[in-house]
Structure formats: C-alpha cells, structure tokens
C-alpha cells in the first residue's frame, strides 16, 4: 500500500482545485438583467395590441414620455415633457434604476420614436426584462416648421391592394403573352442541419 503514503500531490491538487472554485465564485458576477418573460409569453404579448397607445389616450398625469431617438434629434424637438433616452442606453445602470423607480411609482412609460417601429426594439427588450408598464406611442412624430407634430400612424397596414398594381396598365387580357412574364423559378430549399449539434455519446 505504498501509494497511500504519498499524499503530497493529492493535497496540492486539491488545494488548487478549491482555489480555482473560490476564485471563480469570488469573481463571479450575477447577470444584472435577467429575462422575466419567456419567448412564448413575449410572442403572445406582441400579438395583442395592448402595448400600443394613441397619443390622445395617454393619461398625461400618470405617464412619462421617453424619446428613444438620438440626442440631437431630441434636441431639435420633442413632445413637451418627454425625457430622452436613446435605445442604446436603455440598459445602462441609471436607466434601469429609473425604470425601476417609475415602475414602483405605478407610472406608465410611453416610448416614442419617429415611428412606432423605432421604439419597438427598446420596448421589447424591456418588456422581456419584466417592465410591463411600458407602452409604445402608436404615432408618427416629425418636425414641421419647428413644431413637433404627432400624427396618427397606421401600423402594419397594407398600403395598397397589391393585386391592383398588376392590373394597372394591363387593360387588355390576351391569352398568348406569356413571353414576358418572368417565371420565377421554384425555390428549392434544402436546409442542412446546423453546425451546432447536440452532443451525442454514450460509452
């Protein structure tokens, strides 16, 4: 049983192992921003229209407008009381603490940009982080003659009957003119399995 006498190596390696764990734990930082909503919850929320609010429906006394455009655009003109917070800054420590404060105070936050599309991403990220008191202003905003105007916006509304455009300028219907019609090739898509694979294994 010679081997049991030799404990130098095992002692040293155990100490190193414990040290590595200790260092790892001590230097470990918890993720600051954690998703509170799963993807399917987000998808369900996005499918409702609850997060969109019209300018006229905003309860001014209990709401805070936040302009998510860049600073210079904000400086040119903005909604009266609005604060400025470009999309890139929404996860800064100060921003998060501000959102926390507003949430705890029961205030509604209304994001707006040039169009709702612009405010969309910022809203979505914060919604997934659990800030349910944020809404998007369903309006387009623009600067007209140095006055900041808020106009209604038709979100995701098809602007035209697409078929009409084909009919326009095609008054005559002849049967034998397929020559010019571009026949779009049938797209055959073979999706290969991705590089990222689940490990397989076993003995």
């Amino acid at each position, binding site marked *: 049983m010679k081997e049991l006498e030799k404990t130098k190596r095992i002692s040293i390696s155990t100490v190193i192992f414990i040290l590595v764990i200790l260092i790892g734990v001590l230097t470990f930082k918890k993720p600051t921003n954690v998703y509170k909503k799963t993807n399917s919850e987000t998808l369900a929320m996005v499918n409702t229209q609850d997060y969109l609010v019209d300018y006229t429906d905003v309860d001014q006394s209990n709401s805070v407008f936040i302009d998510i455009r860049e600073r210079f655009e904000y400086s040119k003109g903005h909604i009266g009381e609005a604060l400025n917070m470009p999309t890139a800054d929404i996860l800064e420590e100060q921003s998060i603490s501000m959102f926390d404060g507003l949430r705890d105070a029961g205030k509604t936050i209304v994001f707006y940009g040039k169009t709702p599309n612009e405010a969309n991403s910022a809203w979505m990220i914060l919604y997934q982080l659990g800030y349910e008191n944020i809404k998007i202003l369903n309006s387009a905003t623009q600067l007209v003659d140095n006055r900041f105007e808020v106009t209604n916006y038709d979100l995701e509304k098809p602007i035209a009957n697409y078929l009409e455009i084909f009919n326009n300028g095609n008054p005559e219907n002849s049967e034998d003119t397929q020559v010019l019609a571009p026949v779009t090739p049938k797209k055959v898509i073979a999706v290969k399995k991705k590089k990222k694979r689940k*490990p397989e294994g076993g003995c």
Partner: protein
Amino acid sequence: MGPLIPNGILTNEWNIIIAVLIGLAFGFILEASGFSSSRKLAGVFYGYDFAVLKVFFTAAVVSVIGLYYMDYLGWIDMGMLYVHPTYLWAAIIGGAIMGVGFVAGGFCPGTSLCAVAIGKLDAWVYVFGIMLGVFIFSEAYSVLEGLYNGSFLGNITLVDSFDIPANYIIFGVTIIALVAFFVSDIVRKRIKKVFY
C-alpha cells in the same frame, strides 16, 4: 460558453484531435492508478485493495462538483451535455451481466485497453471476449430488442427522478463517497493481505 464543440466555438475537426488527447490522458491516469492489473481491480470485491472504489468515487464526486460549479459560474451549459439515457431494465440486467463479467474477467473495457497496451495477455483475451460478446449481442439482437429498447425513461437525471435539487444530491453523493472511503479503509485493515 461550454461545451465548446457542440456550441460551435471549436470546429468539429478538433473533435478527433481532442479525442486522442483525452484518450492519452485517460489511459495514462488509469494505468498509473494501477488499473492495468486485474488482480488490483478484483481486490475491491475481496477487500484487499480498494483502488477501484477510491478512484471511481473520487472521479465521480470531483467531476460532478466541478461540473456544477462551472454550471453555476456560467462556464458550461448543463443542458447541452449528453445525459446517458435511462432504460431501466436494460441498465439493471446489462449491469448485472457486466458485474459477473467484471468479477470473472477482472477488467472492464477501459482498463482492459490499458492492460493490452502494457502487454498483459489475459487482457488481450478479455478484449477478444468483449468483441465476441458484442458479436453475440448483435446476432441475438432480435431476441434482445425488447429489453434493449424497453422501459425507456428518457435522458433523465437524478434531479428528475427524485425531484430534489441537484446540489443536495451532490452533497449526498459526496457524503456517501467519503463514508465508502472510510469503511473501505477499515475493511482493508481487517482482511488478510494479499500480495500480487
């Protein structure tokens, strides 16, 4: 972050190189721990040498503690790891057959490869036996298929089976391992020494 290859951080070509390197280390550790000697291995069943139990349990405890720390620290994604599937009766019956084979032959496949490398002739025969066993299994697969594929419980872990958080299970396993080490030392002192 990890595991590196399934997450695509390292390309798949590395897999082979790493396989050889891991094999090298595996073989070295097994051989240096004395697992190339069938009599040392069999000692665990007769109480004169508990190297198998010690190496095996230490490895299991260290790896499980290490992996869960890494998971905690976000260095590895436990969900990406391959969890050995549980086919209840296949595991029990297969394990029982292996147990008889272990005590009769004195090796398990990994250790027999080590013994093959250092020229133990009984290990050569043993490896040949394993291959014969695989051959028999394959030929009799139609008979054994029900057992092989039956009672499938999924790629479950003890966390799923007992519904206890993994950390408590690990703590329990650690205690069991330490008790086993302690008991094995007592047993070894009482049993007549066998020189081999």
